[in-house]
């Protein structure tokens, strides 16, 4: 479906994405120049266009190729797992498919996308059905609001016409069913009570426009009343009499299946309690149960919700709730060719080899080849693959980003005799000071000796500080490595740093370097048993540090136990445990991606100073 822009009358985009108007993303208006120059900006435009490709006809869009290109990135990442679902082929739904979808929807109901895909629209995956359903419902709910071209989605089943305004039905139960419920399940109410109820109704009708405040909540549910209440007021009955008058088991008159509905005849939107009138605590509680990436789309609901996700109390509450859940696995889309798409993938379900992921486009990452170095409280730390400066910190959910100050450490050491240079970055949060810290290790070789330099910066500070790394720094390179060094370029891949429970860990050839984020002290754990045939990596296994030894045949997980005082030892993790871990949180071939375990949050970079 081709969109015609109401702003510049060109096809292929709409007024919101019109390059002549300038685009505002995450509250920042991009200038015209930036849009024209940035190649990836085009992707964004196509992205909007390609959205419609899914339900329109792809051939109509002039930039179709480019649009499909923009989508291709998604296929890239899951390619590491063989059994991943294929999606985003961009083949439009046929009328037949849509009809079957409607039938399935009618028979199986909203939500059973798996069932619909399996039994009705067998040519589509459950995800595709869900996506189709979503568009269908959006289309239905928008039908009056925006005038649109006709599309497949306008074809609805008879049933769904009745059931679609679900919301209003939930709010205003149909009086017929209400009558049935009453007569079936409730005891006959005394006439006096009935009268009282109808008086209530009249009153509420008069005050229809007034919103009931929680304090004066006085909604009447006549059906419920008549069955359960003890219609004695203490005023007219002295205490002694009162006790004896109590109807004995008044609470089980209502059968469990009875659906309590609010009073039928006088229910209207105007008189009902509004969610927005609720105490802040309750609204916070409700909304903090929603994942950040879903919630951010709901900012548009009203100003209150929009402001909420900037509220530091809410941010903290949300984060604390989601900290206890298994984190999502975040993958930065690798760049394709010369251009980076700025896509991130949130992998939020891994079943066997099957992933379910969502991708999000992060504006500040477009056009940059960045590697993910760490993730903490929903913030991610990235740097170029080729240079350790600058380091970009960003919250992909809110789109906020900032660059850390540059360091000149690298320039200092570059000189004659340097064979290669490589760096690793650790990103952590100090719970006692509530500050984020970035630690960088530079590893280089001078005259066949390993050299290691370290520096750190705390968010809000303007410059890096050098760290005092313990004395093993001049370590001879084993002979077998010397060949490697000669063979490799200046850059050499060293293992990533892991941040866990207040410590940064980095594994060198025969040791693990530990750095305490609080007291800023280093210590080392020696590893004697390692031979050259192993490639060890560090991993976070259910909150404790573990060593992954990657054989060609299998992965072995060893938990590192002990303390500085007693010494450390290795304990092999139970196979069950490691298996669960591998399949639940880290895909097998991504074991080194501990840094990308990510908790989507609203944590703001401004607050972290």
């Amino acid at each position, binding site marked *: 479906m081709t969109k015609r822009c109401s702003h510049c009358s060109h096809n292929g985009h709409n*007024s919101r*994405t019109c390059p002549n108007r300038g685009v*505002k*993303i*995450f509250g920042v208006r991009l200038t015209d120049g930036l849009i024209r120059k940035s190649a990836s900006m085009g992707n*964004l435009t196509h*992205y909007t266009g390609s*959205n419609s490709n899914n339900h329109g006809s792809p051939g109509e869009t002039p930039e179709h190729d480019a649009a499909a290109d923009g989508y291709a990135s998604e296929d890239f990442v899951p390619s590491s797992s063989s059994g991943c679902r294929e999606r985003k082929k961009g083949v439009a739904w046929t009328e037949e498919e849509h009809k079957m979808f409607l039938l399935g929807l009618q028979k199986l109901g909203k939500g059973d996308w798996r069932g619909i895909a399996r039994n009705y629209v067998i040519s589509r995956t459950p995800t595709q059905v*869900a*996506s189709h*359903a*979503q568009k269908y419902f*959006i289309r239905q*709910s*928008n039908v009056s*609001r925006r005038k649109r071209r006709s599309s497949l989605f306008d074809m609805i089943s008879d049933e769904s016409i009745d059931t679609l305004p*679900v*919301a209003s039905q*939930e*709010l205003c139960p149909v009086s017929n069913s209400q009558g049935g419920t009453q007569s079936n399940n409730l005891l006959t109410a005394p006439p006096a009570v009935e009268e009282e109820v109808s008086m209530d109704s009249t009153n509420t009708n008069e005050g229809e426009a007034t919103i009931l405040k929680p*304090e004066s*909540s*006085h*909604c009447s*549910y006549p059906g*419920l*009343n008549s069955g359960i*209440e*003890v219609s004695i*007021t*203490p005023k007219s009955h002295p205490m002694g009499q*009162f*006790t004896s008058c109590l109807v004995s088991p008044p*609470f089980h008159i209502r059968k*469990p*299946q009875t*659906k*309590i*509905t*609010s009073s039928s005849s006088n229910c209207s939107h105007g008189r*009902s*309690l509004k969610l927005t009138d609720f*105490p802040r605590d*309750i609204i916070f509680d409700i*909304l903090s*149960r*929603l994942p950040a*990436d*879903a919630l*951010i*789309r709901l*900012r*548009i*609901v*009203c100003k209150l919700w*929009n402001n909420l996700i900037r509220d530091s109390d809410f941010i903290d509450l949300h984060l604390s709730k989601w900290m206890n859940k298994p984190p999502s696995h975040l993958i930065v889309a690798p760049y394709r060719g010369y251009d980076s798409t700025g896509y991130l993938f949130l992998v939020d379900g891994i079943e066997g080899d099957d992933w379910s*992921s*969502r991708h*999000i*486009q992060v504006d500040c990452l477009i056009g940059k080849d960045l590697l993910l170095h760490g993730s903490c409280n929903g913030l991610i730390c990235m740097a170029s693959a080729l240079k350790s400066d600058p380091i970009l910190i960003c919250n992909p959910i809110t789109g906020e980003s900032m660059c850390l100050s540059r360091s000149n450490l690298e320039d200092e050491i570059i000189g004659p005799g340097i064979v290669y240079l490589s760096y690793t970055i650790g990103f952590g949060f100090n719970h006692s000071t509530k500050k984020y810290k970035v630690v960088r290790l530079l590893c280089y070789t001078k005259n066949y000796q390993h050299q290691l330099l370290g520096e750190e910066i705390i968010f809000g500070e303007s410059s890096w500080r050098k760290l005092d790394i313990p004395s093993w720094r001049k370590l001879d390179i084993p002979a077998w490595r010397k060949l490697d060094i000669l063979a490799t370029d200046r850059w050499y891949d060293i293992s990533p740093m892991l941040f866990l429970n207040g410590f940064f860990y980095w594994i060198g050839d025969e040791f693990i370097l530990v750095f305490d984020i609080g007291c800023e002290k280093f210590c080392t754990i020696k590893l004697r048993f390692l031979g050259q045939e192993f490639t060890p990596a560090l991993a976070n296994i259910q909150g404790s540090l573990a060593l992954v030894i990657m054989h060609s045949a299998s992965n072995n997980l060893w938990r590192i136990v002990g303390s500085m005082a007693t010494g450390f030892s290795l304990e092999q993790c139970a196979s069950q445990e490691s298996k669960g871990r591998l399949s639940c949180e880290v895909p097998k071939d991504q074991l080194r991606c501990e840094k990308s375990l990510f908790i989507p949050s609203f944590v703001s970079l401004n607050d972290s100073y």
Partner: protein
Amino acid sequence: MSSTKIFLKSSDDKTFEIDETAARASETLKNIIDGGCLDGVIPLPNVSSNILPKVIEYCKKHGGDNGSSKKIANGGVDKDKEILPDYDEEEDKREKVRVDELKKWEEEYMDFDQQVLYDLMLAANYLHIKGLLDLTVEKAASMIRGRTPDQIRENFNINSDFTPEEEEEMILIEDEWDDEWAFD
């Protein structure tokens, strides 16, 4: 088990009785009882006679068993099944049956319409019944999950207070997100 009866008076002057043990499920009532301020009837000006029986029903189920109600509440909320290795299988099994039974009860208990949900939520908040608050809040959250902003506005009777221009700008943000989220 017989225990002291306590009388609660709803906002519209109707009185209900509840066992003391059951009433202790409510932090607010517990404080009143322990504070010795129990003087016949406890007035609850924020809870109407429509909702109070429902609250009492919950307290009866969970009364005198604060720990378990908390556990259940968490179990109900936390759908991500992170089952910690439990070595006592027998105990585990019994616990599981109990949890299943309670879940079923909760499912039936929670079958009501939105207005009741609101009132119940406020009552639970006022009476500090953590488990009930958790249940109701989770239900409200589940009504938001996977819905579009338009559906939510309609469902929760929220009027957008954005100007059309503001809204247009915000929709742009919305467009940037992939649409996989409908898949629950």
